[in-house]
């Protein structure tokens, strides 16, 4: 059982253009995710949700505090080690369009493996089947709709069978039908044992969540 724990984390940014030079995007907080749960963080744009998620996912070092995966303090690792850790254990669905435009759908899905000289085409095909994009296997990203691109991004995040999946506004620019498809997919992923954290401003997300947090002006609350 791997618990993900944030201890007294805080993120501040240096901001030249504003009156005060230091801006706290996330105020000091603790946060825990249990294995196989789907956690949702809601809140207004600019409230610090994505910053918190990026700190938790190992791509944004907190100004203060620790992020622990089990007993491992991920920010104590060097860049190469942490990058490989992210590749093997963490899936990430970025907000907006995140396809690599020079790669086909199947190449995009296999990319996390390709980066480390591995190749699991069967796994990629299986994921395409699961998300209903098998027919788009060799299509290029510009040929895909927003919903298809998002499903491709989720498939890509799952190719390494990660223990944790982070999804940043995964339904941001989708219609209702595709929004439901994505929420149901994330729920199913959590049911299969992957720990899922979704950042969203969609109210409908609540009914798929095991735990819901709210984040406004850098303050995290239950």
């Amino acid at each position, binding site marked *: 059982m791997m618990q993900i724990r944030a201890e007294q984390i805080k993120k501040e940014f240096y901001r030249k253009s504003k009156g005060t030079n230091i801006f706290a995007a996330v105020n000091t907080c603790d946060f825990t995710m249990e294995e196989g749960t789907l956690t949702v963080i809601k809140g207004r744009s600019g409230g610090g949700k994505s910053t918190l998620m990026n700190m938790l996912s190992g*791509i944004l070092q907190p100004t203060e505090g620790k992020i622990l995966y089990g007993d491992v303090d991920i920010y104590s690792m060097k860049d190469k080690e942490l990058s490989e850790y992210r590749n093997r254990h*963490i899936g990430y669905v970025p*907000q907006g369009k*995140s396809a690599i435009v*020079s790669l086909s759908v199947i190449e995009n899905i296999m990319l996390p493996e390709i980066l480390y000289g591995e190749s699991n085409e069967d796994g990629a095909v299986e994921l395409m089947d699961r998300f209903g994009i098998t027919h788009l296997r060799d299509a290029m990203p510009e040929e895909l709709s927003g919903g298809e691109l998002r499903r491709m991004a989720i498939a890509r995040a799952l190719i390494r069978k990660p223990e944790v999946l982070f999804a940043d*506004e995964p339904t941001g620019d989708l219609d209702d039908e595709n929004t439901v498809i994505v929420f149901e997919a994330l729920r199913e992923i959590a049911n299969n044992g992957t720990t899922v954290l979704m950042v969203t401003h969609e109210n409908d997300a609540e009914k798929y969540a095991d735990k819901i947090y709210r984040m406004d002006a850098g303050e995290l609350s239950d």
Partner: protein
Amino acid sequence: MKKTGFVAYKNIIKRPVRSIALMILAAVLALSVFGGTVIVQALNNGFSSLENRLGADIMVVPYEATTKQELENIVLQGNTGYFYMNGEYLDELSELDGVGQISPQYYLASVKAGCCSIPVQIIGYDPETDFAITPWIKKSSSDEVGYLDVVVGNDLNAFVGDELSFFGVKVNVVAKLDKTGTSYDTQVFTTRETIQTLIEASLNKQLNEYANINSGNVISCILIDVDDTHNVDEVVNDINIHYKKLRAIRTTNMISGISDSLAAVSDIAQIITIVVWVVALGIMIVAFFMMTGERKKEFAVLRAMGASRAKLSTIVLTEGVSLSLIGGLVGVILGLIIIIPFSGYIETKMALPFLLPDAPMIIIAAVGAILLSTFAGALTAGFAAARISRIDTGMILRSGE
């Protein structure tokens, strides 16, 4: 198995305009280095060849030959012409202090030769005393050049075994010289006895400006090598003071004009190469920086998937090195296509001795040019890679750019 380089490869293929533009820049870099190196080397070779071909410290000619500039036209420019002086000067000059080796040369211009579409310059030498032409002929043929035998320059349309006719006298081609890159490539060489026969034939056909000369006792030029105990200038001055109808010329002075032109061409080639490199490198740096700006989100996504900073740098460097390597190859191939087939045209246009380097030297220049353009690509991509390795993944993904 696909690896990090696969991402770079696909990016090259799927962004053809950018890729081709960067390849063209690399090709221009390689072409400028390769072309500049080969041309300057060819000019240097031509100049060295010319120095060797002159083969003497001093040339002594009739005074009027220098006033009409005929000598330089014949020796340096490959024009046709002839002038004569009394052969007895040879014996007199051989007695002077400081004269080591001494040998006569005989000039004759054909009006129309079977071998050539233009009149050809015929140069006669004395096989017994010659030290300038014979060593050079022996490089191309070990056969003796007998009576009514000729040796032809490399550019002439005549080959060993051909029979040519000069002033009604038939002569046999017994050797074809290696390329020299000088006016000698368009000239015909033969022994003293043969050229005396040809001069006599030209007089009989009234095709020689010198109507009243004894073909058996005229020479055109005396070549002198000064012995080790004397200074060349001393011997030159000695001749010029005591023989008013003659003119002694130090050969190094004769080719100083060519040397100056060569230095000027080398300087221009260097300046052009530097300007091309500065401009092309600047464009490449801007192109790579623009590329990193455009692909910020892509690199942030790769980071989120687990690409280390080193892997991102590898992708950018692979793109830069691959494109500049291919561009470098293209540039060198273009250089070969332009320079080698058109070397004769370049030689004519520059009016300078031009002798292409041999194959190993060309290969070294080609490999050097490719390596330099590849290094330039790696360097400019390296700047971009350094920028990318510093991207703030969290900030880029957070803003959804």
